[in-house]
């Protein structure tokens, strides 16, 4: 009686769910079953280069901010166990068409904090909005310097104390250096890629989420050691692994 009616309804609902699932899987990225991830660790083999301390005496505010916590250059940041931080991982080959133009709704934030960039490297997709804010009470200017011949056009905006956020996006994949002209030690990166991406943490670990099954080339980019690639096959529902080791020069 009731059971028979409910079974019919359940069948309809299940069909709808399946249709929905198929639509989602073949349409936009979604965290549905079938999609997987790529994880791994990036390490530095050898003695990391010495990161010099930064003389911030040009700006007393910056000196004060680092009175108890001296700042260092961040070209190579290595955590315990040799994990390499600030490495961007992305899929340089094998991206299905719907992921080529993916534009996440999240807005990564680049902060000018204590006269340093936080994070040091900001990764984003083409056309994905990102936000630049300042948490400092000293004036900065935010000056990314892409190569204008790629299609990304440089701009330069002031960020005095209390300045409103700057929201922008980039048109073309590129590793874009960012600097502050007022504080010459401030140097960061906007890394613009296509498709899913990840950045290593202080252990050198990363996870690229929402990767549909398929064959890919994963590229790891670090600002000093440039790139390395690995071929990876992602099976449905199973995480693939890609570890990288850069050699310290």
């Amino acid at each position: 009686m009731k059971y028979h009616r409910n079974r019919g309804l359940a069948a309809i609902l299940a069909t709808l769910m399946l249709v929905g699932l198929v639509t989602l899987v073949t349409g936009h990225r979604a965290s549905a079953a079938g999609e997987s991830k790529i994880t791994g660790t990036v390490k530095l083999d050898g003695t990391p280069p010495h990161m010099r301390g930064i003389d911030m005496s040009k700006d007393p505010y910056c000196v004060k901010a680092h009175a108890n916590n001296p700042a260092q250059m961040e070209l190579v940041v290595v955590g315990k166990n040799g994990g390499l931080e600030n490495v961007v991982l992305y899929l340089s080959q094998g991206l299905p068409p719907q992921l080529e133009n993916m534009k996440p709704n999240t807005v990564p934030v680049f902060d000018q904090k204590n006269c340093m960039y936080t994070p040091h490297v900001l990764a984003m997709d083409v056309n994905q909005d990102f936000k630049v804010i300042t948490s400092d009470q000293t004036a900065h200017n935010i000056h990314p310097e892409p190569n204008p011949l790629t299609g990304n056009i440089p701009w330069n905006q002031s960020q005095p104390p209390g300045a409103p956020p700057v929201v922008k996006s980039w048109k073309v994949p590129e590793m874009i250096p960012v600097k502050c002209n007022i504080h010459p030690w401030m140097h960061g990166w906007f890394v613009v890629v296509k498709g899913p991406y990840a950045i290593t943490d202080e252990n050198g670990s990363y996870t690229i989420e929402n990767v549909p099954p398929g064959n890919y080339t994963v590229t790891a980019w670090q600002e000093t050691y440039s790139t390395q690639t690995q071929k990876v096959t992602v099976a449905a529902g199973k995480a693939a692994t890609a570890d990288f080791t850069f050699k310290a020069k």
Partner: protein
Amino acid sequence: MHRNLLKWPLLLSVVVALCLSGASYAQLTTDQQQEWLHSPAASSHIGNLSGAARAAALPYRRYCVGCHGDLGDGNGENAVWMPPPMYQKPRDFQLAIFKCRSTPTGTLPTDQDLFDAITRGFDRTNMPSWNPLTKQERADLVAWIKHFSPRWQTEKPGTPIQIPPEPEITPERVKAGQDVFGKMQCWKCHGVQGMANGPSASTLTDDLGQPIAAFNFTDGSRPKCGATDQDIYRIFMTGLDGTPMPSFADNIKPEEAWDLVFYLRSLQPHNAFNAKERQISKQLGLKPVNPNAPPGQ
């Protein structure tokens, strides 16, 4: 020690160079530029004047190529005699990044901006004022400039900023301008008296990694983008692209901008534009801003 001071500019330059040198700062080819020569973008409209790029081939070769180069990349045969920091490298038209615009930072200038730049020249550079050329020649050269870069094929110039009418110069405005100067911390590069000796002045580099000096308001130099009040207004409200000078358009309101212009005029030695501002500054007994005052005041 001398070496220490060069540390991070050097490191920075190396890193930047590594990234910039590899990619496509490579030369565009004449074949590509030939194609753009015949495109609609290779034309200019300045008032009633229309310029055509092809009419400018001979004038460009005669007047411009020595510095700007056959490919418009600023590598003319004489560019080697103009090394920074004493000289500034000739403009690279392939990158199409221009200092003096009426349009926001990161956008292309209008034809009028380029026409004015050619007519006016640039003080303290080897770019002369080309006003002996006829207006038609200058308009044609503007069109020619636009055939060097792919950007003109796909991008439209930015929308020129609106400049409100210049208000009357009053002591209140000059004082308010000084407050803006302090709040925006212009003195970090330009110095508290505008002498280009601020704490960050010595490490300034342009987009090509070359040393560059901040504008010195006190030595009689003429501003790069023209000598009038409107020209100064435009400089900090659009930024000088390719240089450390950013755009303050998001941070200075138009009314405040005029106050800042008047204050900046008071820093300059006597010229044709600033008699009133200098007089007011003297009357008010304006002292340079205090860099050690708590920020935000």
